[in-house]
C-alpha cells in the first residue's frame, strides 16, 4: 500500500511542479523548479522499475538541460512577461 501512496503523492507533486514552473515570472526560478520536476520524474521512474531511464533522466534531463537553460537565461533577460 505504501508504494501506491508514494506513487500517487509523486504524481500530484509532479503536476504542481509543472504548473509552478510555467506560472512563475522569473525565468531562473522557473528553470530551478523545472529541475525539481525532472528529479521528481526520475524518482517516479525509479520506483516504477525503469532504473536506466531514471539514471538518464537524472543526469541528462535534470543535470544538463538545467545548466544549459540557466546558461542561456544569463545571456538573455531574466524577467518573463507571462
Amino acid at each position, binding site marked *: 500500500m505504501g508504494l501506491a501512496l508514494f506513487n500517487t503523492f509523486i504524481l500530484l507533486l509532479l503536476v504542481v511542479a509543472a504548473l509552478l514552473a510555467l506560472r512563475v515570472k522569473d525565468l531562473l526560478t522557473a528553470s530551478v523548479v523545472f529541475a525539481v520536476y525532472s528529479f521528481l520524474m526520475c524518482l517516479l521512474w525509479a520506483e516504477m522499475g525503469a532504473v*536506466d531511464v531514471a539514471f538518464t533522466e537524472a543526469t*541528462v534531463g535534470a*543535470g*544538463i538541460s538545467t*545548466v*544549459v537553460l540557466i*546558461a542561456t537565461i*544569463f*545571456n538573455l533577460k531574466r524577467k518573463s512577461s507571462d
Partner: protein
Amino acid sequence: MKLLSYIPVLVVGVLLLYAAKDFPEWGSPDAPASKSPVSSHFIANTGVDTEVPNMVTAVLADYRGFDTMFETVVVFIAGMAVLAILKNSGRKKLVKREFEVDAEPDLIVTNTVRLLVPVIQIFAFYVLAHGHVSPGGGFQGGVLMGASFILVALSWDLETALIRFPLNWTTILGGLGIFLYAGIGLLSMFLGGEFLDYSELANIFPVSREMARYHAMLGVEIGVGLTVTAIMFSLYANLSTEGRLQRGL
C-alpha cells in the same frame, strides 16, 4: 487570444481520455505489450544471445543498436547545429549583464572542485564500463564526464576549461565517437554479417560469438560516451557565451 489556445488542448485531452478507456490493465503481466513475443524474447534470451546481465543495455546497444547509433548522431547534430547557429554571430562589444559580479574564483569552491573532479571522472568511467551489469552505459557516463568539465568551467572560468578541452577537440571527439560506433558496425559488415552484427567479430577476436557481442557492446558504449562528453561540453561552452567563448558564466 488566451481562450483560443484552450481549444486544441481540450480536443487533444478528450481524444486521449477516449483512448484510455481501451487500455489494458495497468501493470498486468498479460497486457499485449508485456506478453508480446518481442519483449519476452528480450527477457528470456538476452543471457544466451549476448551474455549481458543488464537487458536494457543489451537491447540498447545490440538488439536495437541502429536506433542508438542514430541517437548518437542526434547528439552530434545538436552540437554541430548550435556551433553553426552561434558561430561569429555574437555582439561586438561584450555588454555587461545586469546581474554580473566580477568575482575571482572563490577559494573554497576551487579547492573542493579540484578534489571532486577526479572522483566524478572515475565514477563516469565506472558507469560507462559497468553499464553491462548495473544501470548506466554510454549516455550516462558521457554526461557525467561532460559535467566534470562544466564543473571546472563554472568554478574557475571557461578559459581554464577550454585549455583542458579546446573547442576544436569537442568536434573531433564527437566525430570520433560516431566513427567508432559506425566503424564497429562497418567492420562486422566487412566480416560477412549485416551492418552492426557484432557476432561476426568472433572471426577476428579469439572469443565466442556471444562474448564478441559482449565486448563489441562495450566498444560501442565507449563511442557513445566520447560523443556525448564532447557535445555536452561544447553545448555548454557555446550557450554560455553566445559563441564568443571567453569568460563564460
